[in-house]
Every structure is written in C-alpha cells, then in structure tokens.
C-alpha cells in the first residue's frame, strides 16, 4: 500500500513525551495535565485551557535508577515512567493526576512526588491521586464523581483558574468525541477482508490521540480518514490470520508491528492505550450533569481487571469475544507486561474462557515494556500464527 501521508507525523509524536504539539499547546498558554491509567476520564483533562498527555516513556533504554527505587519486581512500564521522570523527561507537565489503578502505578507516581522529579520551578504544579471504583454500581458512580470533582476539577480550578463548569466539560466532550469518531471510522476499515489500514498504522494514530493535544491533531486525523477512504489495498493480503490483541498498558506500536511481521493482522485492539473502549464516543444527554454522565460511562465501559464484581468479570470476556466476532478475528492474543498482577490473573482466566467457552484459539504471553527486540515473543507469535492458520485450513477456526 502507498504510505499514509501523515504517518511519519504521527510516529514523530510518539518519539518523545514532550512532543512538538505538547510544546505548541503550552506555548499557546494551555495547561498540560499529565496522567496515567485509562481510568482517568480524559475529557475532564481537556477543558478549555487544558490538554491531556498520557505519560509514556518512548525509546526506553535502561531503567537502573528506577529499579533501585521500585526494585526489579515492578512492571517495566512503571519503572520506565519513573526513570524518564528522574531524567527530567516530564518536566513539561503542569500537574500529574493518577488514579490508584494498580499498586505499581501508584508507587511510580508517589516516587516521582517524593523525589520531586516532576514540576520543577512550576509554581502551581500539583500531584493528585484518585480513588476509583472497583465495581460498576451506584455507589461506585458516587465515588467516581466525587473523586473527579475533588482530584481533577477542584485542583485545576484552584491552581490554574480553569473553567470547570458543565458547559466547559461538554465542550471538552464534543472535542473528545470528534477524535473518537474519526478513530472509530478508521477502525471500521479493519473489518475488511483486505484492509486499507494496517494494525500498526492504526495503533500509531490511536496512540497519538492519547499523547497529543486533541485540538492540534484533529486536522491530520480528518485528512488521514479521507485518505483511507480512497486508499488502495495491496492486491494480495500479506497477512495469514487475523487476531485481536487484548491486555494491559500497551503504548508501544512495535508490539503490533512484531505481531504483523509474524503474519497476523491486528484487527482489534482491546488494551489500555488502544481504541477499545478508550475511543468510544461519550454520548451525553441534557438532563443530567456532564460530570456524572462521563463517570458513569467510564465506569460502565471500563474493561480494567480491577473491576471485581462478577457481572463485570463476565462482561469483560464477553466484550473480547464480541470484538473478535465483529472484527472477524481468527485468534486472540492475551498479553501482559511481566510483573503485572491484575493482568496476570485476567490473562489466565480470559485465555481459558475465550478458548474453552468461546472456541477461539488464544495465545497468552507476557512481555517486556519495549518489545521490538524480543525474539522470544516473535517466535511465540509465529508459532501461534502457524497453528491458527492450520486450523483455518482445516476449517476449524472456531473449534479452538
């Protein structure tokens, strides 16, 4: 296929946390709200005068200092973030907001705070930690709303004078939805037999929407969507099977590239930083306040394994199965970062259930934060592709 016009632009945005659009937005006087974890409601961080940047540590090398502080038993994602913070890589942030999504992320940010690694010379800089619900119910919603008010809106108002009114929130949601609709529309192309967008390209573009100010990226997104409408696919589909990738924090498109280089087209992305459910539009009504509605939507659609009630647990696996069906996946790859407790369990349960109850071939793997050089992972994916392909040939793709 012909290269996408803006792919390099999007790839460039992923090379640094402090990318050129983050710098531009700050130069324009906007407050940069750095955050971690998909359970932080994104539109609340993108109010007029603010923009969000979800923290990543691209091009991570060693993280020796972070390993001293966190030990080698914490996931590499949390260590990479802390290392980057200690290196001064997040000093552009005007505040850091994090939910207690998991112990490791919490400790990562706490170490940033204790080491004063972020926010140097920023008078109004603040850290906020949020409690977020572990069940999807009314009580959880009350908590979520209160926490967002106390730990996002209030500090933004008090430290930076940001307008946190219902009107402002609705404006942020409108902008957020525009991005989501484009990403969703691009994602739809993945359903085709011979798609006009690769999983890698899609992951790069999706990821860019998490790390760059939305208002500065919209035009390129729109243009790319238009380009896709007329893009000619390769005559022969280079992929042998189609897979859905499921798992935790995956902010490295090289993982998707590795999978696709092994012959599997990534047709659906159910992982943190992916488009499901993070790029579902947020549909608001006019009867209820926007904050409560956003929290409800985040809570109800949340696929994080920390949601512990039975209904949610069942729904998580159903969600993966539904996506696999809708995007015509031949197999599912459950991946977790090493030392991730929540996804260690979710991967075990999910991989068994999707295989045994839903009949999908499933590969369950753990991986490092940066995967590009992982020969072991490549071998496992290649073997999985072989096995799924064999099943397809034998006409038994749904027989596990």
């Amino acid at each position: 296929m012909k290269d996408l016009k803006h792919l390099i632009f999007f790839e460039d945005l992923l090379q640094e946390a402090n990318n050129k659009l983050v710098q531009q937005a700050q130069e324009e006087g906007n407050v940069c709200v750095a955050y971690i974890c998909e359970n932080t409601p994104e539109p609340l961080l993108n109010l007029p005068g603010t923009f969000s940047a979800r923290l990543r540590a691209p091009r991570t090398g060693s993280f020796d200092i972070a390993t001293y502080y966190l030990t080698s038993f914490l996931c590499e994602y949390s260590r990479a973030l802390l290392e980057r913070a200690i290196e001064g890589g997040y000093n552009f942030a005007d505040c850091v907001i994090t939910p207690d999504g998991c112990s490791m992320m919490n400790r990562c940010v706490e170490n940033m705070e204790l080491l004063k690694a972020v926010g140097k010379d920023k008078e109004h800089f603040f850290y906020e930690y949020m409690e977020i619900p572990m069940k999807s119910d009314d009580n959880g919603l009350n908590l979520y709303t209160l926490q967002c008010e106390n730990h996002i809106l209030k500090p933004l108002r008090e430290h930076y004078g940001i307008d946190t009114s219902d009107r402002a929130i609705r404006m942020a949601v409108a902008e957020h939805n525009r991005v989501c609709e484009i990403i969703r529309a691009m994602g739809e192309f993945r359903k085709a037999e011979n798609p006009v967008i690769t999983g890698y390209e899609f992951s790069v573009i999706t990821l860019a929407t998490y790390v760059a100010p939305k208002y500065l990226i919209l035009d390129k997104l729109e243009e790319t969507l238009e380009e896709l409408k007329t893009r000619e696919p390769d005559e022969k589909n280079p992929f042998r099977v189609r897979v859905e990738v499921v798992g935790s924090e995956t902010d490295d498109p090289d993982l998707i590239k590795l999978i696709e280089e092994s012959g599997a087209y990534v047709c659906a992305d159910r992982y943190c930083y992916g488009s499901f459910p993070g790029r579902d539009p947020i549909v608001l009504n006019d009867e209820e306040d926007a904050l409560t509605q956003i929290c409800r939507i985040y809570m109800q659609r949340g696929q994080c394994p920390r949601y512990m009630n039975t209904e949610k647990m069942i729904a998580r696996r159903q969600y993966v199965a539904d996506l696999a069906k809708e995007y015509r996946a031949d197999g599912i790859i459950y991946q977790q970062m090493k030392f991730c407790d929540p996804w260690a369990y979710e991967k075990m349960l999910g991989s068994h259930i999707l295989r045994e109850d839903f009949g999908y071939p499933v590969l369950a793997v753990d991986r490092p934060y940066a995967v590009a050089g992982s020969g072991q992972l490549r071998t496992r994916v290649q073997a999985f592709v072989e096995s799924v392909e064999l099943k397809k040939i034998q006409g038994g793709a749904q027989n596990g």
Partner: protein
Amino acid sequence: MAKEIGKDRLGDFYKEGSKVRKRREWRGVKDTLYDYSRWLKIMMTLGKFVVKPRNVKAMLRYRWMANYLAVPMMVDRHTQGLRGEYLRMCHVEQDLIIDDVAKLLDNLFRGDRRIGNDTEFSKKVVLVDENEMTAVMMGFPTLKCLSRETPSTYVSVLLNQHAAEHYLDVAAEFGLATDVCPMPAAEAGVSIDDDAPVLGACAIQCNTTCDGSLLGNGVISKRLELEDGVPVFQLAAPLRHREDDVQEYAAQEIRGAIAFVEKHTGVKWDWKAYFECAKRVNYATACRQEWLDMNRTDYPQVFGSNLALYTETNYMAICGRVEDFEKADRKLTKLANQAYEKRMRAAKEYRHRAIVWGVQSHFYMDFLVWLLNCWGIVPLTDMLSMVSTKRIAEEDTPENREQAIYDMAWLTENMIMRNRTHGGYKVLLDELWEFTEQFNADMVILWEHINCKALDGMHGMFEDRARELGIHLVWVDHDLFDPRIISRQGVRDQINLYMRTVMREEPIDPSLEVLPDDESW
C-alpha cells in the same frame, strides 16, 4: 537441658533432612510440666477433632489437611527458648488459635457438600476471605462466618513451610504468572485443584489486601458462584483509606454487604450483638495499646511472633465476635504486667531494639523468635500489628448505629497489612520512622516480600530515609508462601551477613546461625 533462659544451644534440636526436631526442650521442672500440660491439651483438642468420622473423611479428601499433622510442632517453634511468663503468653495465644481453627475446620466439614453435607447448617454459613476483616459479621451472631482459605492456605503454611507449593504449581500450570503474590495464587490454586470445601448460603469477598488478592478472588468466585451456586458479594474497600472523601463509599459498601447477607440467609442484623462485639474490639485495642506502650520501654513483653500472630487473628478474623479472645486479652495483659513488674526479659541478652516492617515471611513466622535467640534483636513491633487504634462506638444509640456503619467500614479499610501497603506512602514510609522514634529502635528489619508490589515500590525511599536518619536497615527478602524461592536459611543468612559484616557482632547462640531446616515442616 536448662532452666535458665539462653543456656541451651537451640540449634542442637534440629536434625539434617528431618521434618521434625530431635526432642522437645527441657525448661526446668515447672516450665516443662507447664509446656507438657499444654501439649496434652493440644493433643486432646486434636483427639476431639479426629474422633468425628466426617473430619477423618475430610482429612483423606483435602490435601492441605495433611499439614495439620504438624500442629504441635508449630507451637514448639514459637515457644523456642521461652520460659516463665513468656512461655505462658505464647501458649495462651497459640492454644486459643488452635482451638479456633479446629472449630473452623469442624464447621467447614459439617456443612461441606462433599463431607458432612449438613444442608441446614450450610444455610447459616457466610463464607469470607482469608484476608478480610470480619467486622461486617459482628451483627450476625446466629450465622457462622467461615473462611475456607484460612485453613487451606493461611494456617497450612504456618504449620508446614511447604504447604502452598503444590497449589502454586497448579495455578502456574493453568497459566498464572509466577511473579504474582503467592498468597492469592495459592488460594486460586486450591480452587482450581478442586480442593476447597463447598458450602454456605453466600460469600463475601473483599479487595483486601492487594491487586493480586482482588484478582485471585475472581478465580475463586468463578467456581463458587457460577458453578457451586453460592452467591458472592464483592466488598470493595477503598485503597486511599485515610482520605475523608472515600468514607461514604466504604460505608455504603458495608450497608450493601449487610443487606446481601440478610437477603441470602434470611437473618436480620442484630444491633445488640454488634455493640457487644464493638466493646470487645475496643477492649482488644486497649490491651494492644498497653502492650505496645510496654514495648516502648526497656522491658517489652508481648512482642515478636506472639504479638504478630495474635493481632492478625484477633483483630482481623475475630473482630470482637468470640468471647474467648477477650479472656485471652485479659490473661495476656495480666502476664505481661507480671513480667514487666519483675523486669523480666525473654532472652539472655537484648542487643538491638528493632521495628519489623513489611510483610513477614509466612512460611517462617517463628523467624522473630530466632532473631531474638540468635542475635539478641528484639522485635518490638511489626507492621501487621500496627493497625487501627481508633475506638469505635460501643453504646447502642440511634446516632451510634449510623456511626457503626462507618466504624465497620473503617475497620475493613484498615485491615492488617493493607492499612500500610495501601493508602499512600505516608502510612508505609513516613509512619515507620515515627514508630522507630517512639519505640526508641536502633534497627529496622524490613521484610521485602519480593512479589508484594506495593512494598517493593517504596524500596529506594526506605533506603534513602534510613540513610538520612542513621538507622540500621536490614533487608530480608522472601517470597511469602514459597520457600523454594528463598529458603528459611536464605532468610537467616541475610541477617547473619548484616550482623557479621556491618555490625561486626557474634551471635548469642551460634548453634542457630545455620540450621538444617530445609526439609522441616
């Protein structure tokens, strides 16, 4: 063969390759006869348990029951080297815990569909987690609040260091990463291995203590709720438990749990019973505070594994619901005061005053006794014993009934371990140094449970702060339930190394420095 404290070479009781020790200690006539009488009592408790055919059936059905062969040895491990009041305090606690666990087992097997299958009894059973405050059951005196995980994994590992290995392997065989905390992993392994009793009208699971525990519950509830048909309520206790803006959420969870139990058992919440329990909770707190106050002096009395194991049981699993524990509190306080007045010490020599922090190695709970006997390090208190000291409402008034909901929520949020490992760095990091000062400690023994992410995540900050404050910080790595990763000797070696190289000291009892207990229970 000595009456005096510290005369025996305690290492000489061990035998290479053996599960058990060569013989029991001679502690002088009076103390030996006392210890013998308590041993007889334990044998009678076990005898009463075994005499019931259903318990024998259970013994032959559940793999973890084999660990209960080692009950007397667990007591011996904790009474090592003890004399006088200390020996008696240890027995008061250990014997009561044994009694309580025997009752728990008996009840579990009575209702177990595979064993006793007493369906009427089972309808009165509410299952709870192993690591869960039972505060929410304080107002249900006619219901049986039973934990399946307590006897199958928690107590089993106390009895036999190798108890969890089989279940950990089962969980790993099913694809669970081996870098998660082995406690919930072993509990999940028991469920996967079809080795958990099946009973109960309903169950309450809780997100204590950690991410692993929360997710491990998902494995258990999948089978319990979806296959065995026991409805499960997941009680979500907020992590940031010191914050005001989570308390309403926590309280509402308690209300939800109570309503759930009422619905599935048909039993109504009993306020009178609740407030009786609340009084006992306050009494236990007052006693614990008194012991801790003593431990701040030169003559600490209730400390080490005595304090740790008893607090875990009394604070969390009992939570005021069992009268016998109040009696034990009273007895312990009396014994502690006697010993304090006599200016007694539990070992030949006290060299260092230590705060034991972090999550202790479960397969080596008697390590604290070793620390004292081998190196004269006095474990004044430990992280798991530094739980809530807040007095809860104990008079039955309309206002207090509302307050009680918040009190139960507070207790649940402040369950042992999670009250320190969660809730922000202040409770784990900052307060340690406050305690070090309050207890006049010159040393911190920092258990690093290698798969406890919440703890590992403060590693560097602990180091930095200890260096700033000039406190001896001794790291002791372990893997909680799995001695294959770091053995008991591996645990001891970390102390030995520090004491010899940094402190340049010689052990008080050199026979304890290296022990052949890899094969031991």
